[in-house]
């Protein structure tokens, strides 16, 4: 039986951030994840915005941890080699009547401790972003906001945590938890684990996990967000993330430039009952498109390449719930982490460590902690570097994904780093994310997965058991 000091349930951005932070210390740590890969829950569908914290209510955990998290990112993305850009955000007012609301928002931002605002007249707005509508009344630019690839971040955090001794168990679903005063016995589909402390970072299943120890204080409401992605040929059309004024239950429908040059439109914010409902809808698109088109008239539906939906794991307090469980102080809930959860994640990790210390956790720094994750992205190398790499391993000179120009070498490396499915390869390398959406490379990636994992083509899945992509060979019926 595996015995650990701390068991983290859930390998999304929250669980992974906590794991990586804890991996600095002499501790036995295990992350259990029910999906076939990390980041496959809510984090996969995050908008990837590193928020400034202007939207959050002063005094809330959200405000405190978002502002702090934002300041921690430049170092993290540097250490972990994650695609990131400090592109800033612009919140626009559609009419003169909205300008006073914008001013209030700036005031709220100042209260939250943010600096680096500039209020923009209509002319200044168009100077910064010439493709915005000329009908807007003005805006405010917030310097500290940025963008990041959310799943890349989670892969990086997890890989780095593992490099520093954390254990990860995928496809491991927690079924039962028993507490016997000194330790928890956690029953999963893959055996029983013993642990002194538990961190519940189970996202959409956070309430169910808490309930396993008799903690009924939590309710999670899945709130769906649909996003639509445009062709990379539009790179540069917009540089900063464009926000309208916030609505009642969201920051509004945005125009988001991604670090890779796509433009993302969304998200919607719709309460749903089914915590596995990841459908996009005609209604969602009909809500998004006129909204973003009114901000940027040149946007065209014909530039769409794909869409997706994600579920925010919203809690019942309008704020993050990060606290010792009322049932056991050795069980820490880190739930209700909706927006700005991704931005706050590194600060959440710090906060959780403080909570662990309150219950007597002794932290002893490891003699050797490696803060770096290194990764080869052919597109970011100089020509000379590419030549050297291709000489060393010709697989880097064979392009598999023609739209995003991803080489066989990068795909093989992604599989060796932990991808076991088509989606796992796609999210780690971008292969299949381009304008043909895998039309030409899916078959090659299937072959590479078979070779690397020593499996048969019909065992290859899109995202885990049940999502097999092929049924059989045509040759031996």
């Amino acid at each position, binding site marked *: 039986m595996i015995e650990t000091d701390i068991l983290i349930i859930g390998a999304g951005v929250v669980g992974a951030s906590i794991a990586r932070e804890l991996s600095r210390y002499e501790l036995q740590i295990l992350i259990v994840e029910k999906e076939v890969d990390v980041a496959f829950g809510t984090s996969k569908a995050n908008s990837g915005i590193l928020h400034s914290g202007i939207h959050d209510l002063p005094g809330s955990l959200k405000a405190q941890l978002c502002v702090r998290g934002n300041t921690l990112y430049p170092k993290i993305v540097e250490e972990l080699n994650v695609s990131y850009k400090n592109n800033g955000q612009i919140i626009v007012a559609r009419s003169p009547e909205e300008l006073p609301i914008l001013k209030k928002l700036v005031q709220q931002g100042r209260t939250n401790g943010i600096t680096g605002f500039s209020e923009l007249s209509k002319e200044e707005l168009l100077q910064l972003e010439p493709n915005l509508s000329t009908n807007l009344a003005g805006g405010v630019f917030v310097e500290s906001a940025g963008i990041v690839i959310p799943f890349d971040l989670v892969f990086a955090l997890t890989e780095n945590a593992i490099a520093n001794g954390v254990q990860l168990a995928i496809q491991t679903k927690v079924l039962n938890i028993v507490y016997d005063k000194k330790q928890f016995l956690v029953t999963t589909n893959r055996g029983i684990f013993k642990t002194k402390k538990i961190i519940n970072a189970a996202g959409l299943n956070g309430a169910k996990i808490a309930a396993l120890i008799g903690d009924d204080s939590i309710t999670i409401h899945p709130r769906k967000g649909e996003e639509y992605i445009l062709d990379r040929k539009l790179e540069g059309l917009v540089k900063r993330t464009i926000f309208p004024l916030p609505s009642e239950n969201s920051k509004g429908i945005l125009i988001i430039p991604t670090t890779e040059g796509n433009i993302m439109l969304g998200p919607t914010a719709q309460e749903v009952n089914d915590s596995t409902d*990841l459908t996009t809808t005609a209604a969602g698109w009909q809500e998004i498109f006129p909204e973003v088109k009114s901000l940027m008239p040149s946007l065209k539906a014909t530039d769409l*390449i794909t869409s997706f939906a994600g579920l925010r794991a919203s809690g019942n307090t309008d704020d993050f719930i990060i606290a010792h469980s009322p049932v056991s102080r050795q069980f820490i809930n880190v739930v209700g982490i909706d927006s700005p959860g991704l931005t706050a994640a590194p600060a959440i990790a710090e906060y959780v460590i403080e909570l662990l210390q309150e219950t007597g956790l002794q932290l002893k720094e490891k003699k050797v902690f490696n803060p770096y994750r290194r990764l080869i992205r052919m597109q970011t190398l100089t*020509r000379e570097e590419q030549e050297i790499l291709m000489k060393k391993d010709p697989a880097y000179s064979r392009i598999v994904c023609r739209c995003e120009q991803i080489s066989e070498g990068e795909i093989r490396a992604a599989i060796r780093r932990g991808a076991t499915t088509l989606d796992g390869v796609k999210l780690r390398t971008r292969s299949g994310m381009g304008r043909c959406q895998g039309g030409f490379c899916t078959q090659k990636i299937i072959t590479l997965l078979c070779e690397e994992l020593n499996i048969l083509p019909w065992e290859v899945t899109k995202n885990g058991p049940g999502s097999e992509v*092929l049924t059989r060979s*045509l040759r031996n019926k």
Partner: protein
Amino acid sequence: MHEIPIDLLIIGAGPAGLAAAIGAAEAGVKEILLLDRQDEPGGILQQCIHNGFGLKYFKEELTGPEYAQRFIDQLDVYPQINIKTESMVTKITPDRKVYALNGRSKLNCYQAKAIILAMGCRERPRGAINIPGSRPSGIYTAGTVQHLMNIYGLSPGKEAIILGSGDIGLIMARRLTLEGIKVKAVLERLPYSTGLNRNIVQCLEDFKIPLYLSHTIIEIIGKKRITGVQIAPVTTDLQPVYNKAFLLPCDTLILSVGLIPENELSLMAGVKLDPNTCGPLVNSFYETSVPGIFACGNVAHVHDLVDDVSIESKVAGQAAAAYIQGDKFSSSFFKVNLGRNIRSVIPQYVATNQPTTLYIRTHFPEKGVSLKIGKNRIQQRVVTPGETIRYTLSPEKLKEFTNSITVSLEEETKID
């Protein structure tokens, strides 16, 4: 970076690139290099194992790989043609520098005297047509499934539905059926099929596969693997009638919803595109808006017959040869204007003194119309968007035009 000089560089060794290379070699070009990203020449033909190719060009019926092989075999006659496979062109400049990654660990830069763009086209994916619903496995474009079945010998599923009645969708309906996969329906949003009539007969009717015209998919269902689709009829302005929707269970969905010429490299080179063909604007010599850069095959416009690709690509190859040899082309051109029920015409500029075949596509199907080009009227039994109309302008016919050529389809009663 060391530049490799080359007379003619052809991007893509599919049917267009191969015919262009042979055309150029016949016309005396001394050094021709074909670059292809696949591991063998022949392009998409290698996965098109059905017959029906070559009736026009070779006057016999061939399969796709057989048709390709006829051209590959001809290469032996021309030692001046070289092919590099597993070579992916990453960049072209307007002054005809071509950067290519080759699969044997090198990044090369070629300086070409002339370039022929022959990259073909790609399929429109699900996201581009924005079908709502979940994102399970079991959804493929027709070409991907064709590749998986015909090259890899793998079966995609047991019960399939095909969206789109273009030629690849129809061909795949038959292919799946022959391999024991049940094709429950072919759905077409338009009130008519966009495929060749012979394919509707030979691929659907002969196998009793139902074709639902004026129907589309309004939702994809299934969490891990697709389990079905919601289908709805559409109104004349193509809007789904939601209250008439019905569920059809399936474990495989195949999309055949359009082909897009792959012109990302063309745009890098500064080549201007025609919004109607989505390919470069070309003249009678298949020369693009950038001097010395030519385009032919599906990168220029999507063809219904590969035979036409071969014919036009030979013209492009010969023209590139003339360009390299310093011959002067015609300097005056007639612009082609699109008249009634004409969606696109290629070439878009006709040389005033060069016999030129026009490839004409219509917007909608109709009967009892005549093709009108200047004084010439040619009766058409029936026209459909799926079938190209061909018309050759001889030097005699060209004489009547002064500055432009208008192509239209006119109802017969209206013709004076």
